[in-house]
């Protein structure tokens, strides 16, 4: 099975994150950048499928030069190769434009299965898999907590607000995974060494036949007008329990009309 895993580099959610003051885009230059956490689960799932069904695993990333760090990190987990869509004209791209570029790249890769994270922690739009499926005319199975592969038949169990549901489709398809699907492996020392030699192909917009005017700021379908830091919450009351903390808590709830 030919599997492509979408991997996005995002600023570390545990560290300070900012938007740039000049153009309101995510500040990726000053942030600690990491692989979007959910994407590690997608990589793990791809490797497990390859281990049982054979095939090849390719990482696909659209992002600036420094996304190569995340690509090498992804490769150190075990995938075979990577494709990096890199073009200065991409800066400022919206989700709609990003999906256009990723779809163009996916067409050249002829994947049976596209795996990605259910959401990213920077944009967090949670729309990429359906946008890609819409463009490619293939099935989308989103938010998988379990994925079963039987030849070309795919079965996904996904969490819903009321419980869960089971959805099925046949390849080619896009499956997005939730972080409940598996436990991603840590790269081994051998994996890290091997990743250095794995092929990473760089593709430009010209290579993909996507006109630069359709991406970046020029092609954006939405714009951030302004941004500001949310004022920190003003400090409240903190008491130490000396035997009647529970009663004090209820006093507070009662003063706020919750009890």
């Amino acid at each position, binding site marked *: 099975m030919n599997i492509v895993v979408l991997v996005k580099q995002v600023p570390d959610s545990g560290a300070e994150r900012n*938007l740039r003051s000049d153009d309101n885009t995510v500040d990726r230059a000053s942030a600690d950048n990491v692989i979007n956490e959910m994407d590690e689960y997608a990589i793990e799932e791809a490797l497990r499928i390859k281990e049982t069904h054979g095939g090849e695993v390719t990482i696909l990333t659209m992002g600036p030069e420094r996304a190569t760090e995340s690509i090498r990190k992804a490769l150190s987990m075990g995938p075979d190769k990577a494709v990096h869509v890199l073009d200065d004209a991409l800066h400022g791209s919206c989700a709609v434009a990003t999906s256009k570029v990723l779809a163009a790249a996916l067409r050249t890769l002829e994947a049976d299965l596209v795996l990605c994270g259910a959401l990213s922690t920077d944009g967090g739009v949670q729309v990429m898999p*359906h946008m890609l499926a819409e463009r490619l005319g293939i099935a989308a199975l989103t938010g998988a907590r379990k994925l079963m592969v039987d030849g070309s038949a795919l079965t996904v169990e996904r969490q819903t607000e009321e419980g869960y549901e089971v959805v099925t489709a046949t390849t080619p398809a896009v499956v997005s995974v939730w972080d409940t699907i598996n436990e991603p492996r840590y790269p081994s020392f051998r994996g890290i060494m091997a990743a250095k030699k794995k092929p990473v192909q760089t593709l430009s917009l010209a290579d993909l036949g996507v006109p630069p005017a359709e991406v970046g700021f020029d092609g954006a379908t939405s714009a951030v007008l302004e941004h500001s*830091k949310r004022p920190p919450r003003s400090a409240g*009351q903190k008491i130490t329990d000396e035997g009647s903390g529970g009663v004090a808590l209820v006093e507070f709830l009662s003063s706020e009309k919750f009890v």
Partner: protein
Amino acid sequence: MAEVLVVVEATREFGVKKVTLELLTLARELGTPSAVVLGGPGAAASLAERLGEYGAQKIYAAESEEIDGYLVAPKATVLAELVKRVQPAMVLLASSQEGKEIAGRLAVKLDNGILTDVTGLDPDGTATQVVFAGGTIVKSKVTRGLPLATLRPNSLTPAPAPATPAVEQLDVQVADADKLTRVVERVAEQKGARPELTEASVVVSGGRGVGSADNFGLVEELADLLGGAVGASRAATDSGFYPHQFQVGQTGKTVSPQLYIALGISGAIQHRAGMQTSKTIVAVNKDAEAPIFELVDFGVVGDLFKVVPQAAEEIRKRK
């Protein structure tokens, strides 16, 4: 006034979801609300009264087995056809997984911008979004096509404004291309009488400090006494104390209730991402230095196994 389409979300158990009522309330400020029901046969009839109560002037009903039987693609197609025909001023959906997915497909079909997780929307289409774990507020706008936005639940208080909506039945044609992902089974999991997590006005969450699945009974008890929903930190769901669907945070649900109570939760940034915009925040934690205390309106430094049972007892006494 210009028509604003509101895509309806409902559950079998509770009917029209609160976020849809919020959307109708918002849509009234922006134009004339029309509700769009996308569901199985008969779906609109049971929801019409409630939609009218919150000001829907019109209901578009797309009802078919095929809408129910496949994942979102048929819904997006029906909605796209409707948008092309009626040329609304705006299209609004809930920021649920399904709402975002329909909106995403619609954006591609119409080559239209999309704004997700908005907490407010002005008549000129300027949206407010809270990003980066609630730390940054953004004003944004769709610059190609019509304003297409998904609203985060609990962004405003729904207010009734009774209307008698006319129901227009839509012709549903589902192409094979929209029938690629079949829903073969829907399982409703028992969750008793508790409100839905993202819609609840009170949420009581437990973390690693709760210690075990059994001890979560304490969290549930307090939630029930306050008529709230139960949430959990990731440490708690990963340790198997509570099911994953109740996880609050960056990779879980985003909640914005009137009251959020954190029990045995340290308050890591990824947890805050999901609860930071709650109106009133209360925490019980035995570590006085826990970062959750930076957020609280009222905090108790103490052992939750002493504080919570005492609080529960006190609430019972006062009832």
